[in-house]
């Protein structure tokens, strides 16, 4: 395998804000990589460096061993970005033909349209598309050049559950052609469905780089909350808990085994009330990941 995209000790400052604090990343041809992290973690900045849309403050970004803004490198890459616009007064088919002309060996127009599921809209003006259709058009524009590497920055943002599911399938279909896919996402679930490798980014640093299974085992999946008077650290000792926080008498635990934790609480005879068990959101998951890291 050879390197498709690399960040070498890359940092990025926007004024005084340190968006990336030194990231090294090596993405091989054929890999499907998900970059996972909360808002502002540095995912979009990493992608921007890899695409040459931004320049690293220090360190290096490389695409196929070339500077990312080299047209030979860009000719092998398809891109779907957050917050980018497209001409609204062109038809879907016209816009796809335009983007196909940018690439040396584009795929057939009809195939690109079919991959994005836009068959019925190929004659519509872009301004007539719904939000979800427009997102699929961005996908069509990203794949129509038949690129070796596909970069997708938050591709399912703003989609409903059904839209997200079918969109993930389209991406998976493209990846199955043996192509490299690099996507950023908020959702561990999405990363799990698509990627063989998950790179977790938090506050401008890579805090984990592993398979989805490994990441999941390190991330606390459930949040247990209850009220308990006079609970001490000693009461929780030996329980399968990733982190615990307490505010007055309200206790919050993050764990992968909520049943075992509750059983143990009852066995020890600890008085609890207002019990809640819920799925940990990403915020919680990252707290547990970062603390895991800190504890070694």
């Amino acid at each position, binding site marked *: 395998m050879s390197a498709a995209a690399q960040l070498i000790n890359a940092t990025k400052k926007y004024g005084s804000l340190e968006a990336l604090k030194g990231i090294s990343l090596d993405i091989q041809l054929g890999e499907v990589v998900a970059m996972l992290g909360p808002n502002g973690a540095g995912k979009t900045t990493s992608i921007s460096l890899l695409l040459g849309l931004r320049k690293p403050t220090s360190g290096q970004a490389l695409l196929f061993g070339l500077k990312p803004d080299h047209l030979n490198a860009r000719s092998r890459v398809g891109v779907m*970005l957050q917050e980018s616009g497209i001409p609204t007064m062109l038809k879907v088919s016209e816009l796809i033909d335009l983007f196909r*002309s940018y690439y040396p060996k584009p795929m057939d127009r009809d195939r690109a349209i079919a991959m994005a599921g836009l068959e019925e809209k190929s004659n519509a003006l872009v301004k007539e598309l719904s939000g979800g259709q427009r997102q699929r058009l961005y996908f069509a524009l990203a794949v129509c050049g038949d690129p070796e590497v596909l970069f997708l920055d938050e591709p399912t943002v703003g989609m409903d559950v059904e839209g997200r599911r079918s969109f993930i399938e389209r991406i998976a279909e493209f990846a199955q052609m043996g192509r490299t896919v690099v996507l950023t996402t908020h959702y561990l679930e999405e990363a799990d469905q698509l990627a063989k490798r998950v790179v977790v980014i938090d506050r401008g640093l890579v805090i984990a780089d592993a398979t989805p299974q490994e990441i999941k085992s390190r991330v606390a999946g459930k949040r247990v909350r209850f009220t308990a008077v006079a609970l001490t650290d000693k009461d929780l000792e030996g329980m399968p808990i990733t982190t615990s926080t307490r505010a007055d008498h309200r206790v919050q635990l993050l764990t992968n085994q909520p049943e075992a934790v509750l059983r143990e609480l009852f066995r020890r005879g600890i008085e609890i009330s207002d019990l809640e068990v819920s799925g940990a959101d990403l915020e919680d998951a990252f707290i547990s990941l970062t603390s895991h890291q800190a504890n070694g």
Partner: protein
Amino acid sequence: MATMSVRRAPVGPMLVRQAWAEFLKLWRVPAFSATSLLLPVMFYAFIGIGQSSQIMQGGVTFGAYFLASMSVYAVANVMIFSFGISVATERGMKMDVLMRATPMPPIVYLLSKCITALVFAALTLVVLFPFAYIAGGVRLDPSVWVTLASRVLLGSIPFIALGFAIGYLSGPNSAVAVINLIYLPTAFASGLFFPKQLLPQFIQSIAPYLPLHFFGQLGWDAIGAPTDGTLTSDWLYLAAYGVFFFALALWAYRREENAKFT
């Protein structure tokens, strides 16, 4: 290996596609296409037709003189508006970001916009000339029609750069206002609507330095009306303005690049 032989898409077909897309984008916005094509004809109908056979200095008819004025107005109008507003709007909608990530060279984008602007400018003449012939009764030697058309198209190039500069210097919402504030008064001051002699004295004193004044003289000279200075000096002044506008546009473009893509 075969995979290494084609590394980039050929620029020729890309330019054709891009120019066609740029044309369609403008054509489908009636606020641009209809006003660019019809406004000069409308002005010609209001001002030119009534007194078109009146003989002016140098023995040319007012119909022919005003045709030259409106040709210059129409073409410069397209250059400034099509560039200024489309560039400002596309920046506002962040279209430039996605384009930047594609393998399209920026020069293709720039050239396609120039081609589109020239095609549109030529189209305004295709509408205006027959109108002046039929409704205004303007009769000129065939070579004069050709000279007029080719001069105003060539002379419009500095205004492409001006439009480009305005597109990068003003915001998507302010571009129209900025252009109208600059373009309309200078069009009046340069005598495109009324002979300069009818304008207030202080405007008459500025007028001979305005870029549209030199551009207008190219048109008036083409149909045989007397002008100030020589044809050569008109071209030279216009070229100097072209260099200045181009430098301004380049500076504005670089400023944007540094803010957005570093």
